[in-house]
């Protein structure tokens, strides 16, 4: 029984459908990566799984439960966490307040989770009282991911987490993602840096024009000549 299933998803933002029978599946503790050219529907597929987009056909299942009709806030309560690509922190609030807001739905003691986030991102601990808007791009991404982790989610969805981030920080970010997955959290990631993303992926989904083109493990896709020609530059 797969943990997170988005099956046969068809829908769009308005009249025109962007997704056509798209299937995304991730097992517990797996890292699933969605790659593809611009306009392929990668972010759209993830937003559909999170409920920010209405699909008229298909369903989303979390741990066997059908959550297709739930609002995004309700899905957060079910254990999903979403890190948007842009505007993903509260800029006038401190790092610590950002993390507190991430844990808003929780009524229990959050200090242990906050310590875990600070262990994962040590630099945030140094800057805990600084406003999130004053941090560099890479540190802001860490705050954004940390904020999402505060709900102790079962599924963490990241929309292009390495967009606009330097190569070294990108490596660090991917290392952190692997560490998070190791704690048993399922990761679903949309990425433009296809090569590096597929390198750490247990499952890779190549999407073209709203449809699944290739689905396999990350390593197999990296070695697939067609995939390499289309997106990885040979």
């Amino acid at each position, binding site marked *: 029984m797969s943990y997170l299933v988005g099956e046969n998803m068809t829908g769009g933002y308005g009249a025109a459908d962007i997704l056509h029978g798209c299937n995304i599946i991730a097992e517990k503790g797996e890292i699933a990566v969605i790659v593809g050219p611009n306009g392929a529907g990668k972010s759209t597929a993830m937003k559909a799984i999170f409920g920010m987009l209405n699909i008229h056909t298909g369903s989303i299942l979390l741990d066997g439960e059908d959550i297709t009709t739930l609002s995004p806030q309700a899905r*957060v309560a079910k254990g999903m966490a979403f890190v948007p690509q842009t505007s993903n*922190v509260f800029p006038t609030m401190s790092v610590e*307040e950002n993390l507190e*807001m991430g844990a808003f739905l929780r009524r229990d003691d959050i200090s242990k989770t906050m310590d875990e986030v600070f262990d994962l991102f040590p630099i945030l601990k140094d800057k805990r009282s600084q406003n999130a808007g004053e941090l560099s791009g890479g540190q802001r991404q860490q705050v954004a991911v940390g904020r999402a982790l505060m709900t102790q989610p079962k599924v963490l969805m990241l929309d292009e987490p390495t967009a606009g981030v330097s190569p070294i920080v990108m490596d660090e970010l991917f290392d952190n993602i692997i560490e998070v997955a190791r704690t048993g959290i399922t990761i679903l990631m949309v990425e433009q840096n296809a090569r590096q993303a597929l390198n750490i992926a247990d499952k890779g989904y190549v999407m073209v024009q709203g449809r699944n083109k290739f689905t396999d493990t990350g390593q197999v896709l990296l070695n697939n000549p067609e995939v390499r020609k289309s997106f990885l530059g040979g």
Partner: protein
Amino acid sequence: MEDLLNAFFLMSNFVFVPAIAYGSQLALGAVGVTLVYGILRFSNFAHGDIMAFGTMVVILFTWLFQSYGINLGPLPTAILALPFGIIATAIFLLGSDKFVYKFYREKKAVPVTYLIASVGIMFVLNGIVRFIIGPNDQRFADGERFIIKAKAMKQYLGTAEGVSIKVSQGLTVITAVIVVMALFWFLNKTRTGKSMRAFSDNEDLALLSGISPDKVVSVTWILVAILATIAGTLYGLDKSFKPFTYFMLLLPIFASAIVGGLGNPLGAIAGGFVIAFSEIMITYPYKKFVAYIVPGDWKPDGLVQLLATDYKFAVSFIILVLVLLFKPTGIFAGKSV
């Protein structure tokens, strides 16, 4: 030396003390406006009339208490009536949100639509207040009038000038300090307050974090009711209550909020004092003050007044225009208008 002391007393009596009181009243009003702008993201043009409505309810209950012989000794009876005014205003605002603003929120209207809707609410409140209490001046202050009387001070110190501080002025400053401290504690230390700041900062992310938009909206309106009623009552105790005057206060209140930076409560407070001091200092006739400071034959003939007091509101307007032209985000860099 004695002349300088007299000059200082003169300025304190006619400029500093009134400006601090007026500034506190504007500050409380401006914080209400800035909260609505920052959290609900529109300019609430009904704010002056909301103050009038709240003060009207306070006045009615004050008269009721006075008729029963209930009073607070040296302090104005209006303080006892404040909670009633706040509750009535809160009910009205929550109702106006449910029947007016919510409709536009569901349609995802642009901010200017809410602004026009607030103008509509302003007219409705205009009518309600005049209908219930009439358009004329109402005085409802009772209790002691002065903390310090200029005459008593002159006699005691033997100076030509003295400073008088009215109970209403002292009350204004103390109340404003308490209210502001309470508001900042609420916004910075409580879960609900932080969620409202988060909602103001990044609405989509706040929704994703599970913050309920309905609760944020309701709490915002309740805060506005508290701030507007207190500001209106303090202003009415200090000067007098006349519905038209409260409508006119909209200009200096908005000027204060914009000067301080829209969306920033600290800025609104600073803006309130900037506007109050500017209004009073620019329209004050400095003749007597100058006469105390300069040597004998330099005494001025004219009033040495930059602008007549009729033009007080022109001062706010000019400052508003200058700020919008040169630094639209205000002193504390709030959201741009």
